[in-house]
Structure formats: C-alpha cells, structure tokens
C-alpha cells in the first residue's frame, strides 16, 4: 500500500485553545478573506474556514480536493424541508448552497482550481473514507492532494436525532514522499476499536498531539502519526 505523509495542515474551531499553534484558527467567525466578498456572502462559517484553509495550503490551486462532512449544511438542507412542508417557495441561493459539494464548488470558483473534487459523507466513518479515497488517488499517480473534513451542529430541532458535532474543520496536504517536517501516517487494523465516531475536532486534537491514535470504530482501523525518521 502507498505510504501516506502529512505534509502540512490547517484547522478551525472555536472550541479549542490554539496555545500558540498558528495552524489553528479559533475565531468565532473565520475571516474568509481568501474569497471575494460576492462569493463569501454565500458561505456559512465552516465554508469560510474551509476556503481560507484550502487556499492557504495550496496557493497555486493545483491539487485535487477530497472533502468530507457527516452532516453537510444541515441548517440549509433540513430547514428547506420545512419550507416545502409549509408550502413556501424555496430560496434558489440556499438550495444551490445546500448540496454536499457546495463549499468546494465555491472554493473552485474563487481559486480557479479545476482539478478533481470529491464530496464524501459516510455516517460517521468520514475519516476512514477520506483516507481510503486519498490512498486511491495517491496510488494512481497523484503525488500530493488536499483532504478536508468539516462539520457543524445540526439545527436545534434535529439535535435529538443526530450525534452532536461541534463546529470544526481540518484540512491536510497528504503526499506520497517524506520531506523535512512531514509526518508518516501509519494505519493499522483495530478490530477492537470502539467508541464514538471520529469528528473533525478529534483530528485537530490528534494533529496537535493532544490525544492518542485516531480509531474509527466503523472501519476497524487506527491511524497514528509518526515523525518521518
């Protein structure tokens, strides 16, 4: 299997202390300054954060992008269903931005990145799905790519039916070759793995070495970060 290396990363969450880590943005409202205001107005908070992170990690806009989110934009998607039920007309802009690839679509327009983009949802196994997809791209000749994982809370009236997902997003550049500063991403089988589904916040904690290995109970796999010796 192709080896994976974490080359660089960025994170956003208002629920952690950056403690001097410049890669982590803890602002309540991400700036979104990498995106022109006429595009930025359509993005929610996580969308602003994701676009800023992707543009910071790949200024040349030349890498493929894999984007995962468990709930996507629950606010827009689920609330639209209530509008339909109430017989109200749907907002075309909200409809357009409710699709799962909306954020990376806006990113593509703003950055001019015309490479392959993929939007993934996997019922709590998003990280495993991202890694499997990344493995596929990198085994197929791609040398570096962007992966991004983001979620936010679902609307209050759905909160009892979905796991709580605090607002957080994380983006990484993965590559097939070690270089100074990269960290090897080792994967192993974890048949006994249990616990909660992995969330973007877990990945941020993991990258900041504030927790142990990442285990995905649904996929039965564990990921560890090792310095690239």
């Amino acid at each position, binding site marked *: 299997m192709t080896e994976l290396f974490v080359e660089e990363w960025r994170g956003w969450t208002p629920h952690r202390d950056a403690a001097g880590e410049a890669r982590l943005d803890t602002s309540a409202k991400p700036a979104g300054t990498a995106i022109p*205001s*006429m595009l*930025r*107005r*359509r993005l929610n908070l996580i969308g602003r954060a994701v676009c800023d992170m992707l543009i910071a990690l790949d200024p040349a806009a030349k890498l493929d992008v894999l984007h995962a989110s468990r709930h996507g934009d629950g606010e827009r998607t689920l609330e639209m269903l209530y509008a339909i039920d109430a017989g109200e*007309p749907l*907002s*075309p*802009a909200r409809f*357009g931005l409710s699709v799962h690839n909306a954020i990376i679509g806006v990113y593509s327009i703003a950055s001019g990145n015309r490479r392959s983009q993929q939007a993934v949802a996997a019922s709590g196994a998003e990280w495993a799905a991202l890694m499997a997809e990344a493995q596929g791209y990198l085994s197929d000749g791609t040398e570096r790519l962007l992966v991004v994982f983001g979620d936010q809370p679902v609307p209050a009236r759905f909160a009892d039916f979905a796991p709580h997902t605090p607002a957080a997003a994380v983006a990484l550049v993965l590559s097939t070759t070690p270089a100074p500063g990269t960290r090897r991403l080792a994967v192993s089988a974890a048949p006994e793995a249990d616990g909660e589904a992995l969330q973007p916040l877990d990945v941020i904690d993991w990258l900041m070495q504030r927790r142990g290995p990442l285990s995905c109970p649904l996929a039965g796999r564990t990921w560890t970060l090792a310095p690239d010796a």
Partner: protein
Amino acid sequence: MTTTALEHELKEMIIETLELEDVTPADIDPDEPLFVEGLGLDSIDALELGLALQKRYGITLESDAESSRQHFANLRSLAALVEARRVS
C-alpha cells in the same frame, strides 16, 4: 438624479435578500447595471430577486428572458417594474 423612496426600499431589499454583507444602499447606483457589471450579481441572484419580488409585491415575472433582462437592467428599471405591476 435623486433616489426615490421606492428605489431606496428596493436597495435595502436587494442587500438583505442577497446577503450583500459589504454593500450599503449608497453603494448601489440606480443607473449602474445590477448584473455582471456594476453591482456584479449573478444568475442565482436573479432567481432570488424574482422570488423576493413575488413575496413582497406579488409580481410574477414572465419566463421570458428578454423582458427579465430589461426589468433587471438597473435599479431604476426595477423600480419602474414594481411601480407598474405591484399588487398591493
């Protein structure tokens, strides 16, 4: 030329409906194009604006691209449309 009360109302409707976070009513020149040039709105904005006109003024636009283009040319033509066709 001065801005009429209706034009001001439409400016506020455009800013609010289209979430133009960095735009104030004074930034919208009534004679400048609303779409592509000028204010720089796009096709999704046109649909959104059509919906707002329907909700607020009861105006249903005909699905005729040429007449929509004329109505949506700038703020003055939009005000003229509302003046002529508003239900309430």
